[in-house]
């Protein structure tokens, strides 16, 4: 259910507050006064007459049943002896050791996840555990239920400006104590009335205090300017290369199909810019009979030919836009231009979008060769399999970075679609999206005829991209309990101040990560809280604040820290850190650092543990997958050496690891492998009249593959169905639609919809896997004897390759490093 709370009140508070002049002051700042805490400590915190879930007491946290959970996560596992460490189903994220009341209202782990669910009390304890402390966020995720609060006043702490959340304590009816800075604040009168239950005097029952994920409707205090309309600009490469690849057809068709579904309202505006060696604008004024193209050939000093009608109101000029999209692919079929002036086109886009802000989608198919921001080909094909350092992972010029910063300042987000088959220096081009909070999409070897898999993926991705929710002119602030502080941010945004992130656009598919440190001891508190507040303008021009609050217990024992480790979150944070290190220092440094992370952590566990088995590699059960996940990261395209990897693909893999949400990263790093030719109804799920089989997860090694079977590997952005040579013919006939193995084509990219039970079951399973995904993966059916099988086998991370360890060898290597 979605809760809409409407208060009987006048629209604005009609206050005389001064117009804020910067986003920092609009969103509120950090701690401004710290001396109040000492003077207020003498107030007894538990003297409230109302029993409420916001009663914070560490006594509630130590329930009997919880220690069993801890014992299970601390159970020592000898990795060298245990062959099957992968659980048959994905383990749920670890539950923090809190009372049931707090657990029920705590933020969903899909939105907010911490690497350590038990926060260490001091920095010394954290250093002893040798694990990174950080948060992984997915703040703008698509939610099925979101309480939206329309209230006159948004209740916030007076000193640290934290939003009221389920983990504050109410001292009595009129006062509440902030859980981040411990300041006592007054409860405003309007807050005493609860419109849901229509009762007065129970502020702790209000929806803001009952839900850890809420959305506030922001008043004009939170706006620097009237909320902007949705403005979309498409910058398209129309050089010969681009027309050859055929992406224009796919794009125009996709946009025509989705024109109605672009998020926005009646003020939505749209515009188009195309470029090859010159930049072309399109006049789409309402009264014209057909779109008019304006060509600017002076690319050293691009200017905007007319002031209006290049970005037009979508509703009014819809017919003209449709005409343009229908004509565009045909206009450039015979072009002979091979140069690409991307830099000047981006400068032109910036000038066009300056007054309003919005989203720019850039489609590029080759290296920019003309004008400002031109790039050279830096990749040496002979060094693709080099085991030594990989060069050119950073940008060659800061043109794109500076442009991104300018765009970010004007609330313009730039998304990049790179559809090239040759080296295009993605390392430099991606900067334009990284710092303006955009996304990067890469389709290597894109061709509409020769590579239909990529073409289909492009089309499906465009469908999602054009219709997904979007937020404009956003800022995000992450606040933590006093004593914790954030020191590094990972993701696509611009860090505007020590805890404020400036995001020109927010989209529901990007994730962020932050690293924290413990500045002061948390000994006097039993709970640590984190709050992420995202202030944005919706596509309908409404200013909203989405607030997520997470609460975790604080512990003082090293064993408890290990018990609460969230291995998936730790892996993702380490991946982010490794990528930063490989760009700032070198790839081999980053790889060594990853291995050292495992070695240090396991050494720390051994030094602390009482059960010392000299032989074997002992880890607590919570960390038993740590070496496996780190090995999988080392074999990722982003970080691997010794295997031939194109530089652009490597850089794209790095961009993905830094900007995708956690579940997608885990699938990329450690794909899910299932055997699907013999799925049974045993332990199947029964949903909506369909039976969804639940085959167990298999370890990623060729040992688990067999010639008589068919296996499905889910890698997040791509799925492989590997069919063994002797796979039973019933499967091939009933699911894939071919009489036998030999007749299977080598480039099948989808499973046909056949009426057999086998087919229904298989398709039900695959749809269930794809259910909560936003971007659908490309699908490939791979036969065992084709050359395409290398792309399947490279994901089998537990196996040995000529340049990398097998899983067992890696464990032995770690053991050897630990004994040094």
């Amino acid at each position, binding site marked *: 259910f979605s809760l809409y709370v409407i208060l009987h009140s006048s629209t604005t508070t009609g206050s005389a507050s001064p117009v804020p002049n910067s986003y*920092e002051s609009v969103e509120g700042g950090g701690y401004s006064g710290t001396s109040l805490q000492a003077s207020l400590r003498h107030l007894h915190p538990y003297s409230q007459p109302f029993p409420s879930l916001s009663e914070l007491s560490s006594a509630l946290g130590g329930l009997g049943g919880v220690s069993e959970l801890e014992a299970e996560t601390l159970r020592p596992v000898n990795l060298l002896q245990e062959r099957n460490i992968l659980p048959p189903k994905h383990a749920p994220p670890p539950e923090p050791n809190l009372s049931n009341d707090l657990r029920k209202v705590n933020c969903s782990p899909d939105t907010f996840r911490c690497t350590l669910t038990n926060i260490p009390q001091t920095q010394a304890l954290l250093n002893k555990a040798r694990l990174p402390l950080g948060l992984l966020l997915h703040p703008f995720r698509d939610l099925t239920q979101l309480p939206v609060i329309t209230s006159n006043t948004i209740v916030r702490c007076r000193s640290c400006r934290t939003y009221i959340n389920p983990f504050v304590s109410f001292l009595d009816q009129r006062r509440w104590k902030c859980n981040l800075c411990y300041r006592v604040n007054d409860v405003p009168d309007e807050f005493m009335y609860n419109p849901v239950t229509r009762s007065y005097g129970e502020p702790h029952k209000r929806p803001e205090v009952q839900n850890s994920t809420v959305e506030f409707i922001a008043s004009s205090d939170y706006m620097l300017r009237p909320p902007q309309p949705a403005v979309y600009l498409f910058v398209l490469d129309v050089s010969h290369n681009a027309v050859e690849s055929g992406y224009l057809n796919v794009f125009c068709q996709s946009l025509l199909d989705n024109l109605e579904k672009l998020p926005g309202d009646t003020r939505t505006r749209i515009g188009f810019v195309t470029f090859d060696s010159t930049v072309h604008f399109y006049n789409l004024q309402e009264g014209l009979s057909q779109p008019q193209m304006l060509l600017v050939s002076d690319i050293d000093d691009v200017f905007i030919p007319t002031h209006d009608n290049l970005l037009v109101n979508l509703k009014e000029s819809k017919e003209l836009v449709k005409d343009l999209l229908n004509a565009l692919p045909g206009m450039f079929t015979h072009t002979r231009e091979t140069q690409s002036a991307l830099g000047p086109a981006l400068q032109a886009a910036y000038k066009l979008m300056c007054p309003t802000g919005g989203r720019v989608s850039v489609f590029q198919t080759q290296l920019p060769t003309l004008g400002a921001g031109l790039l050279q080909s830096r990749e040496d094909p002979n060094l693709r399999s080099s085991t030594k350092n990989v060069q050119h992972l950073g940008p060659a010029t800061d043109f794109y*970075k500076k442009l991104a910063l300018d765009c970010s300042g004007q609330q313009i987000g730039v998304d990049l679609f790179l559809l090239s088959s040759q080296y295009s220096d993605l390392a430099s081009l991606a900067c334009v999206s990284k710092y303006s909070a955009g996304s990067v999409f890469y389709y290597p070897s894109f061709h509409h005829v020769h590579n239909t898999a990529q073409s289909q993926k492009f089309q499906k991705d465009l469908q999602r991209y054009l219709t997904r929710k979007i937020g404009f002119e956003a800022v995000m602030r992450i606040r933590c309990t006093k004593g914790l502080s954030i020191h590094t941010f990972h993701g696509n945004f611009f860090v505007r101040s020590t805890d404020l992130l400036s995001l020109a656009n927010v989209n529901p598919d990007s994730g962020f990560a932050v690293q924290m440190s413990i500045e002061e001891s948390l000994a006097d508190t039993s709970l640590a809280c984190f709050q992420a507040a995202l202030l944005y303008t919706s596509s309908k021009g409404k200013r909203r604040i989405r607030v997520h609050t997470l609460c975790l217990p604080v512990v003082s024992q090293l064993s408890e820290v290990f018990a609460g480790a969230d291995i998936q979150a730790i892996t993702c944070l380490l991946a982010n850190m490794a990528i930063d290190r490989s760009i700032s220092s070198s790839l081999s440094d980053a790889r060594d650092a990853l291995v050292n992370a495992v070695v240090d952590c396991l050494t720390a566990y051994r030094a602390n543990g009482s059960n010392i088995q000299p032989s074997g590699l002992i880890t607590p059960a919570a960390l038993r997958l740590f070496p496996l996940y780190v090995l999988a990261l080392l074999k990722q395209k982003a970080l691997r050496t010794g295997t031939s990897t194109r530089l652009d693909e490597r850089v794209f893999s790095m961009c993905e690891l830094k900007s995708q949400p956690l579940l997608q990263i885990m699938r990329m790093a450690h794909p899910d492998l299932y055997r699907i030719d013999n799925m049974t109804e045993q332990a199947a799920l029964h949903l909506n009249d369909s039976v969804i089989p639940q085959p167990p997860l298999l370890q990623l090694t060729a040992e688990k593959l067999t010639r008589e079977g068919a296996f499905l590997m889910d890698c997040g952005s791509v799925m492989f169905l590997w069919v063994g040579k002797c796979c039973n013919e019933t499967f091939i006939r009933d699911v894939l639609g071919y009489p036998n193995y030999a007749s299977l084509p080598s480039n099948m990219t989808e499973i046909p919809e056949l009426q057999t039970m086998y087919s229904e079951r298989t398709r039900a399973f695959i749809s269930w896997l794809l259910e909560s995904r936003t971007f659908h993966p490309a699908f490939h059916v791979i036969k065992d004897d084709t050359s395409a099988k290398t792309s399947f086998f490279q994901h089998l991370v537990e196996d040995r390759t000529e340049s990398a360890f097998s899983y067992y060898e890696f464990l032995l290597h770690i053991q050897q490093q630990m004994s040094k």
Partner: protein
Amino acid sequence: MRLFQSRDLQLSQQSSVWIIPHERKMAFTFAAFCYMLALLLTAALIFFAIWHIIAFDELKTDYKNPIDQCNTLNPLVLPEYLIHVFFCVMFLCATEWLTLGLNMPLLAYHIWRYMSRPVMSGPGLYDPTTIMNADILAYCQKEGWCKLAFYLLSFFYYLYGYVEFKNK
């Protein structure tokens, strides 16, 4: 100095006239002049160091935004380094080896710092996208304080040197 003096005395013993050789007079004024110039320029360097410290503190307390701050700091980097190089060269010409030796580490540090700066088209060391990282910010602040200490010490050293040369 003493060598000249003794030779002087020898000469004067012969002719009972206090004759000062021409070269010695030049060397004397040039070294003193160097120290005096170094003194004034170090005052400028102290000013730069203080500016840096204040700028990073402003960044840390969210008083200013990183893009503007980097745009003010970056143009100051090369002038500071060139001024320092300038008096190293001056001391080289004045054959003041001890003073030159004391400035060598700072010169090497400046060269290393500039060589390992992020990819940038204009002059400067500070990139607005990475400067807000807590470790980089802490490093720059420490650097500011260390340089301030160094320039203050060198200021007093040059003052002593100037006075000593002047009096000789």
